[in-house]
């Protein structure tokens, strides 16, 4: 059971993410964001509920749809939006972009755009924690589409064999890009149903209910910290936008969209806050704060300078440079 104050702070964080994603979309339409974006609007509860179950020194690895994870781990909307807008103040100094948001101060060690590639990395971070004798855990957030690639299966096996403190958290938003995941997957629950093949515990959870995510993650994290090994969690959720910026998501039946929009994680959280007796004004105030923070972030990101051209030749190597020959 979450207390009202904590839940309100989660709600604030979810609204902050939602507004940031909306701003990203608007900036994209205004021609200020290049390339592509994969928005996580609708999936905020997964990031916020999971992050709330983690310590600051735990490790997080995310996918190219990872804005919500960066923000949930402490990256500011300004640094995220500045990165999308190719500004030097961006999280990755304008060298990563939307698909590679990384916030090392929060041990959010990257967003990866090769599907499934970061699951073995998360296992490795957990292995490292185990070897260093810390009780840190690592989390890999990934989409349903990642469950059919080899790296997913190799990571689960290795993590199970080495009993690593890692949580594999699938954000099942029902679509592998434009294709229903059910039409290309041999089992009903693409992540959870595979866990038993690796002798791992698993659970299917409501990914739009921030408290449910938090509760399941708390159990999984505590199992991992106590030496009980990995857990596979499959959070059912839904994206409000298409796969990427060019996708209007016409392939999704309207009735399905309507049902999921009615279960918007923000709405679910509002009802909970209401039930806990949080006054409507407090909820409005949290929304207002988030909105103002994102407005200020957009303005600051717009004002920030672009990168110096010389920076294209920095940070290939640990000495900061890119020299490859004498």
């Amino acid at each position, binding site marked *: 059971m979450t207390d009202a104050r904590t839940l309100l702070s989660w709600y604030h964080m979810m609204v902050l993410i939602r507004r940031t994603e909306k701003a990203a979309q608007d900036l994209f339409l205004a021609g200020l964001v290049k390339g592509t974006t994969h928005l996580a609007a609708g999936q905020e509860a997964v990031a916020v509920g999971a992050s709330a179950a983690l310590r600051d020194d735990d490790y997080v690895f995310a996918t190219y749809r990872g804005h919500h994870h960066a923000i949930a781990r402490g990256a500011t909307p300004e640094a995220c939006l500045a990165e999308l807008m190719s500004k030097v103040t961006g999280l990755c100094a304008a060298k990563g972009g939307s698909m590679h948001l990384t916030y090392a101060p929060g041990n959010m060690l990257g967003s990866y755009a090769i599907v499934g*590639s*970061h699951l073995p990395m998360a296992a*490795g971070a*957990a292995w490292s924690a185990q070897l260093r004798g810390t009780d840190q855990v690592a989390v890999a957030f990934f989409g349903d589409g990642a469950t059919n690639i080899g790296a997913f299966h*190799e990571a689960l096996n290795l993590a199970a064999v080495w009993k690593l403190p890692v949580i594999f958290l699938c954000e099942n938003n029902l679509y592998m890009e434009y294709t229903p995941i059910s039409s290309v997957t041999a089992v009903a629950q693409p992540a959870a149903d595979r866990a038993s093949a690796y002798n791992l515990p698993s659970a299917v959870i409501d990914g739009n209910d921030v408290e449910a995510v938090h509760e399941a993650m708390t159990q999984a994290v505590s199992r991992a910290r106590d030496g009980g090994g990995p857990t596979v969690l499959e959070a059912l959720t839904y994206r409000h936008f298409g796969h990427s910026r060019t996708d209007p998501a016409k392939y999704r039946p309207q009735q399905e969209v309507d049902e999921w929009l009615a279960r918007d994680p923000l709405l679910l959280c509002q009802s909970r806050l209401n039930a806990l007796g949080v006054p409507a004004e407090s909820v409005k105030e949290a929304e207002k704060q988030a909105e103002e923070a994102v407005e200020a972030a957009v303005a600051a990101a717009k004002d920030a300078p672009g990168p110096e051209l010389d920076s294209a030749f920095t940070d290939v190597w640990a000495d900061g440079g890119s020299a490859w*020959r*004498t």
Partner: protein
Amino acid sequence: MADVITYREAVAEGIAREMRRDPRVICLGEDIGAAEGVFKTTVGLFEEFGPRRVWDTPISEQGFIGAAMGAAMTGMRPVAELMFSDFFACCWDYLANEIPKVRYMTGGQVNVPIVVRTANGGGLGFGAQHSQAVENWAFAVPGLKIAAPSNPADVIGLMASAIRSDDPVIFFEHKALFAGRGPTAPADHVVPLGEAAVVRPGADVTLVALASTVPTCLSVATELAAEGVECEVVDLRCLIPLDMRTVLDSVGRTSRLVIVEENPYQGGWGGTVASIVADEGFQLLDAPIKRVAGACVPLPFADSLEKHVLPSVERATGVVRELIRRWS
């Protein structure tokens, strides 16, 4: 420690020295623990350092190379063994997309101090999928450092640099050199990454070599010395950083260049060396640049066929002899 050791013993010795000095160094790979490696390049490590530092993995190259990357990003110094370099293709995402890019694409937030060791090259009759020289695969990817030693002392010295490096290093160990012997390295021997060695001086022609082609070129030099031709042999030792200063200086002395490389002519690293010399050292040359490389075919199985397509002493000697004859 014996004064003379084999190349394969030098691999284990080089790793062991670093494991003794830095508790963050850990090893992982298929059959590297109690079995001590299929090429016996990890002999003694499991016994000395135990299962907490020497880890057997499943046959799961994406799984354990990816895990090694994650460990490297979070405070460890993993040394991963990829049994055969052909298996890079099984985990190429990590070598081409993840390990070399993550520092750059995060704006310098993350280091990946990993060493991926692998048995490279042909000559042992292992057939097309266990014999390729693939150093040019790694050479095509910005963000990877590449070491490929030719003798036991360099194995130890380059291993020290590779493991201490904060950058990812691909460490090519040549299968045909494993049984070779040479002087061991003194304590604390470190060969910096990116420093070529002139292993034989000579005034008439520069032979640029790497790993297995170093002994090949030394044999060529011995043979041609009898005919009055003095070859200077440059052992690159690393492909990245590429020590072009040493190559250009040598060509400045000899005015002729022959590159001897085991990877295929198509896309081989010698093409880059040749292009730099043509671009920046054209005035030094008295003859066209020649490349002796692996043939552009998969590696055949039969000894006679394999020998026929690899850069041999006979073929390289013929090329150098003809170059001197036509351009003297």
